[in-house]
């Protein structure tokens, strides 16, 4: 009679790839975040500004598509010679660009950088102007509405992500599985990163595609081909330091509310201090002959605000800030902050087994 082996038999079925196992943590985290009604509301709210910016792009493209005479209305002239005709035509185009820029500026008058739209009209080329206006729209979209939503969403989602594991000593559960500390960290970082992608990268790309769809011809793609890359860069500049810093706060405490408080304090207090320095000097920068040194002074102080620091680098990526050297301190600050946060975070999540 054959004797059957009824002892332990290891699993012989298929297993998922080791390289993507961290995604399980992300998936569960994102699903868990979406269970919160507030997160769902915040996500919905964060998509609303796209309507305003989308409308502005629509208006811009519509006006650019109109004949100059229609834009200028009753403006007319009597031609004398070919040379005059040529000069008058160029002048008309320039005036038309200024009219378009002013229309847009009126729509975005509440933004401090709306003068950049008038500057864009100073160019001699409609294609260059289109690039500048689109860059402006995307930069403002990421900087203001999405910047504020980033602050809120991170404050809602991130604080409990690691602090809950610290409190319940769940690290032992993770590490008793084929998951390394780095994979655990990747899984956790990808949770806020995925959600922030959904409110920054995805709508910004949507805005860009929306612009393309409204374009008169395919040449627009050649005019603006670099913008998707700039969008990716600008969202990465925001998401990487924000995720690492907020997760670091979460890992430092067992109480998620303290992590949340630290997050809002760093973001909010820094911005308040920056505004207290910036607003009184704004007028002086415009009027004073010594305006440049005041601008340097306020630029240096922008480092006190994480929001302002990220914003300056984003502006440079979209070409609104021309001088690379002026944003080097901000860039260096973000790099240092990210590296230190990552190292510290890694140490924190390794600590439970280091004892």
């Amino acid at each position: 009679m054959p004797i059957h082996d009824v002892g332990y038999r290891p699993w012989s079925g298929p297993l998922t790839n080791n390289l993507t196992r961290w995604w399980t943590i992300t998936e569960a985290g994102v699903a868990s975040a979406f269970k919160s009604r507030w997160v769902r509301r915040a996500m919905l709210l964060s998509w609303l500004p796209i309507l305003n910016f989308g409308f502005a792009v629509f208006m811009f493209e519509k006006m650019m598509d109109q004949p100059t005479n229609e834009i200028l209305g009753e403006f007319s002239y009597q031609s004398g010679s070919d040379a005059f005709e040529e000069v008058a035509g160029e002048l008309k185009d320039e005036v038309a660009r200024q009219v378009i820029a002013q229309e847009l500026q009126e729509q975005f008058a509440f933004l401090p950088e709306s003068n950049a739209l008038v500057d864009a009209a100073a160019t001699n080329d409609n294609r260059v102007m289109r690039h500048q206006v689109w860059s402006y729209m995307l930069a403002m979209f990421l900087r203001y509405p999405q910047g504020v939503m980033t602050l809120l969403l991170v404050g809602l989602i991130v604080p409990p992500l690691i602090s809950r594991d610290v409190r319940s000593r769940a690290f032992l559960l993770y590490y008793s599985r084929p998951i390394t500390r780095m994979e655990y960290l990747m899984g956790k970082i990808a949770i806020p990163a995925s959600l922030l992608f959904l409110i920054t990268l995805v709508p910004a790309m949507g805005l860009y595609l929306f612009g393309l769809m409204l374009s008169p011809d395919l040449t627009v793609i050649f005019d603006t081909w670099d913008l998707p890359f700039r969008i990716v860069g600008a969202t990465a500049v925001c998401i990487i330091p924000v995720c690492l810093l907020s997760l670091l706060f979460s890992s430092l405490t067992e109480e998620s509310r303290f992590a949340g408080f630290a997050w809002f304090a760093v973001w909010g207090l820094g911005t308040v201090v920056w505004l207290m320095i910036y607003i009184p000097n704004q007028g002086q920068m415009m009027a004073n002959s010594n305006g440049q040194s005041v601008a340097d002074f306020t630029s240096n102080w922008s480092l006190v605000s994480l929001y302002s620091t990220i914003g300056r680098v984003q502006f440079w990526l979209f070409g609104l800030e021309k001088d690379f050297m002026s944003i080097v301190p901000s860039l260096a600050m973000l790099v240092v902050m990210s590296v230190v946060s990552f190292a510290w975070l890694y140490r924190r999540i390794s600590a439970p087994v280091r004892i």
Partner: protein
Amino acid sequence: MISFEHTTKLYKTVIGVNDVSLDLQPGAYGLLGPNGSGKTTLINLILGQIRPTLGTVRVFGQNPWNCNELLNRIGLCPAIQANYPFISGLKWVTFLTRLRGFRSSIANEMAEKALAIVGMTHAMNRPMSSYSLGMRQRTVLAQAISHEPELLILDEPFNGLDPKGRIEMTAFLKEWVQKKRSLILASHILHEVEALRPSLLLISGGRLLASGSPEQVRSILASCPNSIRIRCDNPNRLAALATEYYSVNKIQIDASAGTIDIETLNPLEMLTGLPARARSAGITITELRSTEESLQAIFSTLMKIHRGEVRITG
């Protein structure tokens, strides 16, 4: 199954495990030691979470350090309070099973099965915040067994359980052992571990002080200087008998409570002989026990033996 060869783990200047050598064959083991004795360090060495400073560790013939393949043969039930308010027990166990590499649908089936084994089917879809302490403990156990490990490691699994929960946990672990699966149960309470009749590993100060069956451990205790409490109807007369026939270090009589505490160098002889002499003298003994039966007493005795302060008699 597991072998430690002169294994030492230092945390800077703190010794976690000190020169431990042992060879464990498949079976059930009770890892006993007071808090801070090195139990968790030993478990982390087995799981490959930490590397020994000196010596080697082999688990199923492999070096466990960074060995992912090995981790799927082991289930860990750590001493944690799993409390994820918005997640149901089923989702939590499924998630942790998926982390082992099982596909979502398979992991879900495995989790359901494990939760059924620990008697949590009725509550598995409820949020974990609504679970009692015992239910959470059972859910933690379910995540450890969901992938049907070859070796189950439990760290203080009885913590927070009510008597019913303890009985159920013991019954489950007995069944596990009967299925010829391996088990390491870390605890600081002797009688909880004894019920499973495992081989005992006694660890203190990072050193493996003794190993053997529960009977062998008890015989060590009985053979060492010990304090015995006797409750009877005539404590003064019994005290006289004890001092007349046995080597007594110290005796303390509480006539109102009817008890005598006797410290003797030869407890085994007294425990076996004194009841008969009392009966002959017409004394009724209602209670006879060692007052130092706790695990700490065993460890203090073992430490005395290691230091050469006492010798085992009998």
